[in-house]
């Protein structure tokens, strides 16, 4: 072993090697391709409609924000209402997921009860269940309740812990919290509910933040269920409102792209602030970003 160490010359990598250059070239070129469509949309949104076609790829001649103004008010009601609806639904969904999933996760991670393993398996199986197979009966039920065109069909399910992803995430997290904490509290006479509220829930904070971020992004970007449950003009959210604008804007691509670009900002801001957490969330639990 030592003879090898002596005989082999100290290996130094050259500062710039050919494979290294290729690596950077591919990475930079790839990054440019990835980001170009988004930049193109942003640039087009500040061009006039003629310029979008006469000068599609390049920087705009001058900055014209009128597309944002006309686009915002192109629909009736305006995008103000769509954003209010979107954010209200996101808020409800976030609260629902945080409360219901943490309660469920605590029971699965810490308490003993009959059929625990079976129920846990069932919970995991629902992860693979395509929502389309539940769609028609759920729609009929919500329609009979008079919930169509309200926030309720999009929020109430979250209060019933239907997002198994987050339950699983939290169960994994709670299992890493030392049991001694619960046991000490039990000896002090704390009930399970007390243990949950004053020990587990506060310590669960990192998993809760991941849950909040992903619930927000998924709910905000969700199109399918909002398309189905929200049809009256006043109830529309940003994604369904954008679709309305697609149908009504005709050749006015500038305002369409302006509203599209604008609608990406909330997700983009969350991405900028929580990038590390998003990456961790995906890497550790396989959450689909």
């Amino acid at each position, binding site marked *: 072993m030592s003879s090898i160490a002596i005989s082999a010359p100290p290996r130094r990598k050259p500062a710039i090697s050919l494979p290294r250059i290729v690596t950077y070239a*591919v990475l930079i070129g790839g990054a440019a391709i990835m980001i170009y469509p988004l930049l193109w949309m942003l640039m087009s949104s500040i061009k006039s409609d003629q310029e979008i076609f006469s000068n599609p790829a390049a920087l705009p001649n001058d900055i014209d924000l009128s597309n944002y103004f006309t686009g915002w008010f192109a629909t009736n009601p305006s995008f103000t209402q769509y954003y209010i609806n979107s954010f209200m639904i996101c808020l409800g969904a976030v609260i629902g997921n945080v409360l*219901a999933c943490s309660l469920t996760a605590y029971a699965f991670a810490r308490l003993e009860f009959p059929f625990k393993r079976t129920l846990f398996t069932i919970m995991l199986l629902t992860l693979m269940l395509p929502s389309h197979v539940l769609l028609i009966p759920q729609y009929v039920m919500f329609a009979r309740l008079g919930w169509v065109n309200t926030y309720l069909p999009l929020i109430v399910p979250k209060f019933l812990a239907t997002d198994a992803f987050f339950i699983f995430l939290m169960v994994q997290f709670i299992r890493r919290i030392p049991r001694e904490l619960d046991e000490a509290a039990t000896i002090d006479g704390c009930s399970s509910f007390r243990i949950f509220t004053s020990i587990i829930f506060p310590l669960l904070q990192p998993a809760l933040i991941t849950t909040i971020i992903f619930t927000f992004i998924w709910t905000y970007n969700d199109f399918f269920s909002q398309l189905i449950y929200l049809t009256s003009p006043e109830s529309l959210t940003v994604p369904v409102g954008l679709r309305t604008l697609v149908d009504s804007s005709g050749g006015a691509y500038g305002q369409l*792209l302006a509203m599209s670009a604008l609608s990406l900002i909330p997700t983009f801001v969350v*991405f900028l602030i929580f990038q590390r957490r998003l990456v961790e969330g995906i890497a550790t639990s396989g959450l689909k970003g």
Partner: protein
Amino acid sequence: MSAQATDIVTDAPRTARRRKRQNFEAYLFLLPWFGGMILLTAGPLLASLYLSFTDFDMLRAPNWVGLTNFVDMFTFDPRYRKALQVTFVYVLLGVPLNLMVALGIAVLLNQKVRGLGLFRGVYYLPSLLGGSVAVAVMWRQIFGGEGVVNQGLSLFGIDAPNWISTPQYALYTLVLLHIWQFGSAMIIFLAGLQQVPNELYEAAEIDGAGRWQKFRNVTLPMITPVIFFNLVLGVINSFQAFTSAYIVSGGSGGPADSTLFYTLYLYQEGFTSFRMGYASAMGWVLLLIIGAFTALNFWASRRWVYYGDDR
């Protein structure tokens, strides 16, 4: 002896009582989940199974028609067959290409590059935004007749068609949009690559392995579990793709049904034609297709996924 016996006698009811109390408390915690499970999952699952054997339009009571819906699907309905074909092309092409690009970029990023955080962010961002209506709108403009892609091609004297409205090409623009969103798979790959022990690479180097051999014989086998994980998730999610096809085709699945994703056809049947029995049957077949693909993936994984020597 007798003291012990009395201990057991007095203790048994107490532990039983405590256990009972804990059971009760556990079920209290699980109350929301049970509610959701029964009202929003199990109930609808059974209800849609029943509806799949009926004609149902929400106005009249469901009318039992036996297997008619399923027979129609596979024998009479050309649009259903088209939807299946389109979806299979999308999944079988989109998922492997998405994973290959994700793995390729992840391997490059794993070479201790400078600016890792920035690169990772730029590559990840599209997959975070990609499912949105806004990005689908953008894609429609980019690949449209006078879109930026064709403007670019015209610089080289190529007179390209409108990619979105040409039946041969429209689906491939959606596959491309799917590939563009490889970021989350890439991040999972990157996490997997960082777990590969360095000793293995050093050992391979001593044996004289080059870059490609190290990748082929060390990296690839070691990350097969991650590839498998991404593959299973990718297949399940891609079968349910909807937004891109809906927005790019304006809800029609056109041109000539060339982008008629399975879920898009299900939506049309259920919510434009109000053939809700048929849509329920389609939902169940989708569940069976996804289940079959997932089972196939797990079965095949025994042949190529490497979980270390201990298994």
